[in-house]
């Protein structure tokens, strides 16, 4: 069993970090993981995306054309990648910046106004964590408790931002309608 999660958005939205946090949480659970960035020529403010592959056996191809799930943080990402998501996957739409739908009726579309939620928490920069937590709550691809621990470890050198990121996780879970 293998799951592929694509994170996509603008450079600066914490796309690569979100993917890394998910990969770390999965690794802590003993899964095989692989984090693959897009490293093509990009300019500042351009698109950034990465794919995280989580499996129960060594990861084969690291090139993923059709991810199971998508976290789209901006409109160009949704337009580009929504069509390639596998049926029945989750597409998380950052509705703060994306005024359109995924256009798919065979996926589980989850709209989360990540920027507004993060702003209410007092730090707009944790919008990516809101999205990640909402996604994890919806898919259960890793345990939330592990995600919390990984966020704490990742921000260990900036302990000041840990509380707001913990709040961001709770807010993300709530935005996803809680844990099913």
């Amino acid at each position, binding site marked *: 069993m293998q799951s592929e999660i694509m994170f996509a958005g603008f450079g600066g939205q914490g796309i690569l970090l979100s993917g*890394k946090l998910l*990969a*770390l949480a999965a*690794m802590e659970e003993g899964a*095989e*993981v*692989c*984090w*693959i*960035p897009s*490293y*093509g*020529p990009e300019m500042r403010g351009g698109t950034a995306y990465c794919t995280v592959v989580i499996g129960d056996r*060594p*990861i*084969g*191809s*690291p*090139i993923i*054309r059709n991810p199971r799930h998508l976290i789209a943080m901006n409109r160009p990402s949704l337009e580009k990648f929504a069509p390639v998501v596998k049926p029945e996957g989750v597409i998380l739409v950052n509705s703060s910046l994306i005024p359109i739908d995924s256009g798919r009726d065979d996926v589980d579309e989850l709209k989360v106004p990540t920027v507004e939620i993060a702003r209410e928490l007092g730090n707009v920069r944790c919008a990516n964590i809101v999205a990640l937590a909402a996604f994890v709550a919806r898919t259960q691809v890793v345990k939330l408790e592990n995600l919390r621990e990984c966020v704490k470890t990742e921000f260990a050198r900036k302990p000041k931002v840990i509380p707001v990121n913990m709040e961001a996780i709770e807010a993300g879970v709530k935005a996803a309608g809680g844990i099913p």
Partner: protein
Amino acid sequence: MAKVLMKGNEAIGEAAIRAGCLNYFAYPITPQSEVAEYLSRRMGEVDGVFLQGESEVAVSYMIFGAAGAGARVFTTSSSPGISLMSEAMSYIAAAQCPAVFVNIMRGGPGLGGILPSQGDYFQATKSVGHGDFRLLVMAPASVQEAVEMTMQAFPLAEKYRNPVMILGDGLIGQMMEPVEFPDHLKVEPVDNSSWATSGMDHRGSKTRNLVKSLFLDPAALNNNNLVLKAKYERMQREEVRWETYNGDGDYDALIVSYGTMSRVCRTAIDNMQAEGLTVAMLRPQTLFPFPEQAVYEAATREQCRVVISVEMSMGQMVEDVQRSVKGHRPVQWYGKCGGEVPTPEEIVEVVTESLAAN
């Protein structure tokens, strides 16, 4: 030590330190720059040396100088940078000094692109520089294997007093995977007193060591080449490494593939198996020495009808596969390059068509 999630490039840097290499000279180039970025910080923590040269050419001669003085030393670069270093590799091989070069390949020729490629197979295995010499070339297929091979590369370079190359593609450098680092190697000081220019006083010796690649006397040069040849033949006897996948029972086709490409093939093989088609893979872990005998034996299994070399190049390793199979089975190539990576679906199609035709 617990598993950590690391980029291939950073993991290679850490592996070198754990192999006791505290001398690193480099010049940045995508997609390997993170090695230099990582070691620019890390070398300071372990009292090592990191020096960013003014060019790849300069770096390669810093490697020669340090290796000639008996230091454990390495560098990393990517395809165009490796071309610039290739002259020094020839000198280092001629002078019989140990050194490790890491090539995180990008698409070529020329400046090419920055995405993953395997276009430097010929360069690495046949003729990286001028003259009669070889590199021992190892090709990792995961971040963990990149770590293990990097750590093994130093003792191998010292065993043969010859440059060793780690040949990875851009994805090996860029992706993050869980890795477990072996403990620090017990770095026994290699006895290099017979050749290293480490100083007569330092060695307590009254004889001068000379590191050189100029042999104007034809007999002496011929002799030096014979010494090198004997080493390469010993590598072919002692260092050949490979791995097979799905090859225990009967199979209809054999794929030969290495590095990241072999992982895509693994997925394709799983997909074919699910459809009832059994295909095996042989993955060379050393490209020179090439696992000739193993490829021959795997290709000539009774039920195997065709051999396909799948590469991120326009067909380079396929020549070694053909040489190994010796005409006993049809050998074909499939690949893409420039950053395009063949998909599992394409590989399934190629294998299926090939089996229909053979």
